[in-house]
């Protein structure tokens, strides 16, 4: 309370001071000039049409779309422990640089690799392509080495009734750091958080065994969840490829904890967009043109994130319950949540990609600048020549339109895939097409609404 009062006082004090502050017109200025209402209508209509088509077309069509093609045989050798150890080595180097390297977050490799390479790119690739986390995670390798060296076995049995609770708690902690911490990119601060979390997770694995990675380690849970929508997966000893989501349909029903986790993934991703809009800033009484900084909105962001997640959980469950009531199937809502929650994954992935496209395009250049001259000696390992980070494409109408339409396309595609997945599951669940369509109606309306919301987020003026 004291903190909140102090923050309020700070905001109030600043608001009262004569402080000429310039908010930059930025790319959102050109977005506001685009006919985004028309684009949004087109996007929403696409999702609506998909639903209509599914109602008309024979039941097998959607299922056929997700049928994978088997490709090459799986390799016989397993390198994942070695690559995981390498990943841990890279992480250790990055953490060290975080502690002793430059303080500028666009020069120090730790924030660049954690927030751009991992959070923006690797998470997106996990959802787009498939489970690379098996090879790139920094824990399974070191944990295997540790177990081999010490011969120790898990000291405590991870009780099944704990479910995903530790993972959910840690995920909310991660989301709080991402959304509400005043300085998540500060290299020194990030080094402690990343190094500490890596160490605690290794301790978790030592204590509870590998089960900790499946139930308690939030980032692995998130990555494994996204792997369910990836193009590439395994099928009967071979690498297989299918439309995004095919792996999710192969093993649809998840545990209650994982279902909640997936819903929170979407909730956090959605709030990550909301908290930048003028609408939200107006709601919390902050002037977006002289945004007082993240440290002044810590409490608002935390509360907002929690409320957004609770609201999403409630709305999603209500839609499923209502559909069930309409179709007259009378099955427990929880069962429906466990079955249909994974259909939200393509939407969450789409939000993630759309939200971070511009971060990728701008901060990705800082990553290149680091890679070409990692020791700050003036080297040019990548042959980029005289290199300056540019944001010109965010201030040029043509490229702004192309970026916006790509983002919108990703959001719409995410929703279309989600609807296709939900339709296939509903058919399996209800047995006949008509009942499946009736039962799906509230969820379909929810997804149309969410498409509108996603496109509105992209089109609305933002303050940060």
């Amino acid at each position, binding site marked *: 309370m004291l903190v909140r009062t102090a923050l309020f006082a*700070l905001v109030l004090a*600043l*608001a009262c*001071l*004569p*402080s*000429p*502050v*310039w*908010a*930059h*017109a*930025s790319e*959102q*200025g*050109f*977005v*506001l*000039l685009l006919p985004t209402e028309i684009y949004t209508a087109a996007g929403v209509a696409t999702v609506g049409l998909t639903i209509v088509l599914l109602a008309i077309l024979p039941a097998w069509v959607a299922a056929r779309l997700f049928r994978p093609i088997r490709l090459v045989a799986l390799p016989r050798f397993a390198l994942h422990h070695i690559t995981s150890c390498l990943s841990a080595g890279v992480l250790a180097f990055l953490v060290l640089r975080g502690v002793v390297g*430059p*303080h*500028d*977050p*666009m*020069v120090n490799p730790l924030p660049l690799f954690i927030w751009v390479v991992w959070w923006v790119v690797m998470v997106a690739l996990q959802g787009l392509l498939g489970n690379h986390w098996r090879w790139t995670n920094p824990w399974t390798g070191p944990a295997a080495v540790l177990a081999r060296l010490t011969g120790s076995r898990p000291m405590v049995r991870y009780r099944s009734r704990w479910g995903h609770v530790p993972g959910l708690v840690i995920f909310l902690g991660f989301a709080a750091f991402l959304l509400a911490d*005043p*300085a998540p*990119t*500060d290299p020194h601060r990030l080094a402690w958080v990343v190094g500490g979390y890596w160490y605690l997770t290794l301790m978790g694995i030592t204590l509870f065994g590998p089960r900790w990675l499946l139930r308690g380690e939030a980032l692995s849970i998130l990555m494994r969840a996204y792997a369910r929508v990836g193009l590439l997966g395994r099928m009967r000893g071979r690498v297989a490829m299918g439309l995004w989501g095919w792996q999710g349909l192969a093993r649809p029903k998840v545990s209650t904890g994982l279902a909640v986790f997936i819903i929170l993934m979407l909730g956090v991703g959605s709030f990550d967009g909301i908290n930048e809009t*003028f*609408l939200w*800033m*107006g709601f919390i009484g902050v*002037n*977006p*043109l*002289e*945004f*007082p*900084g*993240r*440290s*002044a909105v810590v409490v608002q962001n935390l509360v907002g994130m929690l409320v957004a997640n609770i609201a999403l959980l409630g709305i999603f469950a209500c839609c499923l319950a209502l559909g069930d009531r309409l179709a007259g199937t009378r099955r427990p809502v929880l069962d429906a949540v466990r079955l249909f929650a994974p259909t939200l994954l393509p939407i969450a992935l789409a939000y993630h990609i759309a939200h971070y496209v511009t971060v990728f395009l701008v901060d990705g250049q800082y990553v290149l600048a680091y890679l070409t001259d990692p020791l700050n000696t003036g080297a040019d390992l990548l042959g980029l020549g*005289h*290199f*300056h*980070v*540019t*944001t*010109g*494409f965010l*201030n*040029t*109408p043509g*490229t702004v339109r192309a970026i916006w339409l790509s983002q919108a396309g990703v959001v719409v595609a995410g929703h279309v895939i989600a609807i296709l997945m939900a339709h296939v599951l509903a058919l399996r669940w209800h047995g006949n097409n008509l009942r499946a369509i009736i039962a799906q109606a509230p969820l379909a309306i929810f997804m149309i609404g969410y498409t509108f919301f996603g496109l509105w987020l992209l089109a609305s*003026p*933002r*303050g*940060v």
Partner: protein
Amino acid sequence: MTDNSKAPSRRAALKTLAGGAAAAATLPLWARYTHAQTAEPIRIGFQVHRTGIGAAYGRWYDRTTQAATRLINDAGGINGRPVEIVAEDDGTDPKRGAEVVEKFASQHNCDIAFGTLFSHVVIGSAPRAGELKLPYFVVSEGHHVASGMLNRYTLQPGITDVKSQVQAMAPFVMENLGKKVTLIFPDYAYGHDHRDFFSAAVEAQGGEVLAKLAIPPTETSFTKYFPKIPRDTEVIYHVMVGPAVLTFVKEMGEFFGGRGPELFGFIDSLEAIAINSPGLEFLEGTHFWEGMPRHAQPDQSEYDKFYRAQVGLNDRGASLNDPTDVSTYGHMFGCWETLYTVKQGMEAAGYRGPQDRAALIEAVEAMSIIPHSNEHPQGPKVFNGKTHQVFGQQHISRIENGNLVKVHTTSIEDTFYPDEVDYTKQPF
């Protein structure tokens, strides 16, 4: 109180200022870092808006700072010591700003802090700099330094303040564009400053402010405000900022259809935006204040040419690497000029380390005339040691065929106003 006899005289400061760079440049390379083997670098804490609302400015402030530092080091550094920039992100956040200043002083052993743009960060950080006795050189344009709100350790020697800019514009606007003015401004401190300073200046010039239209900061559509502009308005003074500014320009253009009153604005609205962008056609023929003309003018100085080349900018103020990447040309020269002022101050003070911080401030306070030069490419300036604020020429440009064409340059005297504080009376 410090012993004033230790402070260098103004003459000494000016002498060093004129001769220092030239002398260093004549030294052979091997001799430039006289004490390079033994001497620590001069560490300049750069409080940069890397993230948050100021990030677009921060990127250009960084680029300008790096260019100036490279030149200073190539010419032998400061007092024979190389300059090291220690950049810390403040997140454009006042609370973090104060923390960053603290880090500069206590963790990074910086000699000074430098480079802050956003006023709320300056206002949040300056008290801590004062407590830590860390010279804090801001590049913010805010009137808060000269208003007396801050302290003896905070100085703004590289960029003029908004009060002097607005005041200097008024005579030109009155004589050339019209005497009956309507103000359109965002309804918060920044807009209120413009409203108050410009209203006062208009009245002083015998003009009349017909209406003051305050626009809520979260507004994104403006058509409903334009009918409130009185019909006999001769000139509209607009200082809208933020993402909706392009919409504002477009809607205003559509409302008047090219037959409306004259328009006068501040380039702040369109910093980093190409002035010939689609959607901005309505600005053709209108006037803007510019701190430093973004587009190279026919009478471009050698200094401006040199500065552009060193920062890597073309004649339209955009990056040589990517001509669509338009700089924040109207503001970022302040970093360049401030670094040179710091260099000149340190040389005049014989600065050796943190024990000489007070002497550095006294040396800068002793500065007055700052000649137009490679070190000060924006133009000649006068530094007011009492108010810790620099004063300089301002420019008015007219948009002609998508180019910013300079049509008027004020005198430095046009920007003067009575002192509101005498920081030299404050103890260190």
